[in-house]
């Protein structure tokens, strides 16, 4: 901690030196993200807001680049390019945070709420590597950015209810802005009972309750420098996981940071943001509500991360450069206590994550060069040092049962590079790129101890001797756009070497009651994964917008064996009618039958499905307030279905009526305008 403070002070002093120069310039917009999901309620783009009080998971689900593994009604796990958590770099404003559950019941995205965020930046492949190593891509959750404009009070009240599961969501947000400081606080509460799948089938243990609150403070030091602090407290209780044998009684996160931001420091440095951060997660699994369990277990987990992130955006001639320094230290610990049915017998205990300390320090540089009016190239380089250390001796001795010669510490270098080219002329845009990236095995993959996977019914054992996974990636995107029509096709191909996956070891017998066998994390020589999609938009008349999206993926190993969790042919189509303050949308979501699935990894065929949704909205805008009403019916035909990524084919929600009301007010001396307009320098 002392070191972090020292580094912070060092940076602050450095910044203040640089701040002497006062030449101003505007930051150019850097648009290289694959997708930005806008969450801010104050967004002008009403059409994107299908429900104002949606959960973050529902917003993610609307993204064309993201699919989600669902284990119930809460805490869905995002997949990008058919790859999940360990292959993705998921950060909150560049801050690293790691779930505390050995069974991936708490993806990072479950510890924030929509109210904490303004948008989510989705990056594919190595485009997501600026904040840390990744293979599949990056998901950066951008917190609401505040400024010192529009002095006065502002705030919002939200309320939403849904017929299916009786979901109630309420939110309140209050903010006071002064030209020298701001203070902002929000609180969200969500509560859902069990939902009903199609055909009114009750899905037991799908309930959840979540409280989330956050506070932001900011002080403007001078025209170019500001300091802000932010704290998010997220508390989920009584969360059911119908697809899993256990539920969660508590999932709690505290996420805090102090940030220094500087703008237009000189001709070169346009933006420099440095933050020190801390977050801690407690996750408690619970099986006491299940009617019959072979043996009662407690499975708590903890994850604590300290870190430093410094990002600089610079501009020189034709170069737009960004520099990123990332350092973090994480402690992940999880244990399992089993209670014998005979109360006289001693408890059975093991560390499932034996107190793993991970240290990472990495730098990355990205440069975009405008060669000519139509030609752009971009390249990026990053290098990092990664170390794991098993801090618990009991745990180390347990792992030594499998790996007698293993050392407590393991060091790695992780490198990534990327090159891209964009051609842009009139109605046509082409972009293509190649990239190479590496990642270290996750805590579970390297040090997990008898982690039961209820999908393939195997106990998983980590492997500390795994090599870095290496990804060679190429991508191609074409966009054609004329006044009322837009078409985009994109494809990303990954050739991944030393692909980490569990391999059945018949020598070992499972620990978990009901498990089929033991899988040891090991590396496949190589795998090939392809993600492609086509999106079309057509607006025959101003009041009518139609869209269609199709995606196809492929994922096989070097022996042509199917990989698990590869998205089958999927589509969604919608038609939106917009007139004045009203918008109405009819949408179809669906997927073909999953022809190729991985039997080996517990998959069985997912039948084709299509569901019909209706969304509607009305917005009333006045100088001092805005009232927004959203309503609709999801799964109108009450279809019973599940997608390929629904854990153990847990069925999805059946017919659901929802309505939500959002009221926003603003009392300021100046003329009222959209707050987001003042965020130009951030995005």
């Amino acid at each position, binding site marked *: 901690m002392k070191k972090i403070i020292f580094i912070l002070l060092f940076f602050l002093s450095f910044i203040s030196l640089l701040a002497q120069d006062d030449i101003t310039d505007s930051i150019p917009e850097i648009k290289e993200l694959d997708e930005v999901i806008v969450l801010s309620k104050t967004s002008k783009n009403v059409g994107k807001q299908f429900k104002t009080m949606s959960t973050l998971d529902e917003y993610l689900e609307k993204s064309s680049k993201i699919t989600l593994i669902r284990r119930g009604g809460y805490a869905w796990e995002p997949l990008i390019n058919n790859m999940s958590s360990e292959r993705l770099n998921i950060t909150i404003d560049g801050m690293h945070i790691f779930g505390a559950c050995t069974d991936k019941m708490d993806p990072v995205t479950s510890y924030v709420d929509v109210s904490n965020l303004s948008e989510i930046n989705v990056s594919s492949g190595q485009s997501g590597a600026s904040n840390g190593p990744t293979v599949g891509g990056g998901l950066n959750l951008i917190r609401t950015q505040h400024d010192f404009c529009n002095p006065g009070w502002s705030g919002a009240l939200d309320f939403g209810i849904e017929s299916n599961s009786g979901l109630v969501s309420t939110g309140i947000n209050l903010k006071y802005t002064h030209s020298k400081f701001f203070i902002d606080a929000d609180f969200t509460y969500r509560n859902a009972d069990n939902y009903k799948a199609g055909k009114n089938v009750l899905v037991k243990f799908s309930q959840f309750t979540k409280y989330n609150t956050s506070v932001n403070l900011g002080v403007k030091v001078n025209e170019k420098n500001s300091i802000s602090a932010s704290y998010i407290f997220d508390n989920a209780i009584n969360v059911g996981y119908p697809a899993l044998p256990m539920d969660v009684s508590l999932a709690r996160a505290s996420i805090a940071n102090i940030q220094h931001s500087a703008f237009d420091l000189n001709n070169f440095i346009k933006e420099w943001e440095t933050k020190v951060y801390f977050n801690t997660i407690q996750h408690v699994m619970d099986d006491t509500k299940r009617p019959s369990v072979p043996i009662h277990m407690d499975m708590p987990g903890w994850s604590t991360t300290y870190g430093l992130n410094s990002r600089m955006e610079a501009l020189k001639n034709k170069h737009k450069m960004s520099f990123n320094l990332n350092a973090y230290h994480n402690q992940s610990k999880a244990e399992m206590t089993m209670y*014998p049915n005979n109360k006289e017998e*001693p408890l059975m205990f093991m560390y499932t994550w034996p107190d793993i300390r991970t240290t990472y320090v990495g730098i990355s540089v990205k440069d975009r060069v405008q060669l000519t009016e139509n030609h752009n190239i971009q390249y990026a380089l990053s290098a990092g040092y990664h170390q794991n250390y098993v801090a618990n001796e009991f745990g180390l*001795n347990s792992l030594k049962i*499998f790996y007698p010669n293993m050392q407590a510490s393991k060091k790695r270098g992780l490198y990534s590079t990327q090159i891209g080219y964009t051609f842009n002329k009139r109605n046509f845009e082409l972009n293509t790129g190649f990239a190479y990236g590496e990642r270290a095995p996750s805590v579970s993959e390297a040090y997990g*101890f008898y982690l039961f996977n209820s999908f393939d019914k195997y106990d998983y054992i980590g492997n500390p001797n795994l090599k870095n996974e290496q990804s060679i990636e190429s991508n191609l995107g074409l966009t054609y756009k004329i006044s009322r029509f837009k078409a985009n096709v994109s494809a990303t191909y990954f050739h991944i070497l030393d692909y980490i996956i569990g391999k059945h070891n018949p020598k070992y017998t499972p620990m978990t009651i009901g498990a089929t066998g033991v899988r040891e994390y090991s590396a496949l020589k190589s795998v090939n994964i392809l993600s492609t999609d086509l999106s079309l938009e057509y607006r025959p008349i101003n009041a009518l917008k139609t869209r269609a999206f199709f995606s196809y993926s492929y994922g096989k190993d070097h022996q042509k064996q199917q990989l698990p969790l590869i998205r089958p042919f999927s589509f969604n189509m919608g038609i939106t009618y917009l007139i004045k303050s009203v918008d109405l949308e009819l949408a179809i979501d669906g997927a073909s039958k999953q022809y190729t699935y991985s039997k080996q990894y517990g998959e069985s065929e997912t039948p084709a499905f299509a569901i019909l949704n209706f969304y509607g909205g009305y917005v009333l805008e006045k100088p001092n307030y805005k009232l927004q009403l959203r309503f609709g019916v999801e799964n109108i035909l009450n279809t019973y279905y599940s997608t390929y990524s629904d854990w153990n084919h847990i069925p999805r929600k059946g017919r659901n009526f929802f309505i939500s009301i959002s009221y926003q007010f603003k009392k300021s001396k100046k003329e009222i305008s959209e707050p987001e307009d003042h965020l130009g320098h951030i995005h």
Partner: protein
Amino acid sequence: MAIAIFSLALISCEKETNENKIKKVQEINDDNYIVELYTETGKFQTGYNEIFIKVKGKNTDNYIENININWYPEMQMMDKKHSCPRSSVEKVAGETFLQKGYIIFQMAGNTMEHWNLTITLNDGEQTVITEQINVQAATYKNVATFKDTISGKKYVIALIQPQKPTVATNDLSFGLFEMESMSNFLPVTNFTILFDPRMPSMENHSSPNNTQPSYNNVDGLYHGKLSLTMTGEWKLNLIIKNAVGDIIQGNAVSETEDSNLYLMLEAK
């Protein structure tokens, strides 16, 4: 005087090195000698007991350095008497007065039946002292007697290591003795011991990377490796094969039944 101080220093030194490790169980006396018996737990239990002995002159109140100790434990049953497997008593390396050996009690004493320990001291002159000792039942069954289903001979098998099982790969050793007579137990050198560790409370799951024991003629025990993946009660299911490889006792664990020959332990 100088010698006295020296020996005092030695005693205090010895106390420092061993007092923490061993506790006195009891003393056996006659008119001339006090025989002090120690174990790590401060008691005698069924199964393997590593026993430390110091002999004191009753009149001099000094520990005796050069004295030969022999022992003979005997169970006084209602209808018969028998002994148990035991080592000889040897000097502890690096110690002046401390001697040690092991005794494997097959059963605990009770109100009707008890163990006697006969100590024979010899420092040129022989003294025999017999006294009753209290052998308690160990928490876990760590010794078993069984019959060779082929020859009908009787054997004793005892878990010697690990005495403190942990969640790790533990050094494992068994002592296997043939009950040649009521008083004589001979180490068996050429049998095969197979073990299968299971957790009865967790649907009898096993553990990985165990090493089956083999006979070591230095200490006369069977040595292997035992992996314990979690704390709690473990059952070591045993199969014993004779010199020609025929199973003489025990059976493989099946879905419905464990081996009829087994030992128990608790990993902490």
